[in-house]
């Protein structure tokens, strides 16, 4: 059957998914930098504010 992606690409996706989404979560400052760019700079209180805002305005 035709493969949508070559196996090594799928494995790379799997690696990224595990490294970025899995593992012990430590709440506090979290900086993820890929290729020299901070993709995520997160403080818990900012995340909570965003969810609260989302809850106020469903549109």
């Amino acid at each position, binding site marked *: 059957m035709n493969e*949508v992606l070559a196996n090594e690409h799928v494995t790379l996706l799997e690696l990224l998914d595990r490294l970025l989404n899995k593992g012990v979560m430590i709440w506090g400052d979290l*900086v993820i930098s890929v290729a020299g760019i901070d993709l995520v700079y997160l403080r818990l209180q900012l995340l909570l504010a965003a969810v609260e805002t989302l809850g106020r305005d469903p549109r």
Partner: protein
Amino acid sequence: MSTELLLLGFIRATASELVKQVDVPVLFAIVCGSSAGVAVPAEAWPEGLAGLQLQNRVLLGLNESDGVLPVRTGTVFGSAGEIQELIARYDSEIRRRLDLIAGKVELGLDLWTTDSQATCGPADGPGRQYLRRLCGAVADPGPVGAFCVALHQRLTEISAESERLACLRPSTVFRASYLLPKEKVEEFKSLVTGEVGGMNELGFLITGPWPPYSFSCLELEKGEGSGR
């Protein structure tokens, strides 16, 4: 002046000497109680994909030797003292989880199909339509879905733990991770090959062995004195 530390994972304190056997000189262990954190100076760590692949290699080496709980990528501490403080507060939870994953590896399984009836299709068009198709696929998984459920059950029976994961591609019909004793890895592969091999419309990919990323399900919180 303190150097920021990238925390890669936790190991048992008794295994802290194994860190020196991993071929990464900047790696060191911070022991506290019965656990230890494995860290590197953030400035000495390569950026981008190279850093991620090196992290995976380090964790794989540590897991091969004893067992490691990977910490989510990008977790930075201001000092070794902060890491010690964290371990001191959560030592018993970390140790309990380390004892559970010791001697085990994670394998991933990805099943996909070319039969568009068995999937919810690509995520093109309005999002609402896609979500409706997705809900329909969940409500009525069809024969392929039933096969996946049965296979997952059989694989779970030979695993210490298992977890179904979100599919990364539209053609994927099933994705899961399994925590397996090392001696069960070949049995797992044989089972998948035998079961899925007879299904013409299905393809599969087994990935790993991985460090137990999907089974390091601890959530810890830095102390108040640890903020930057």
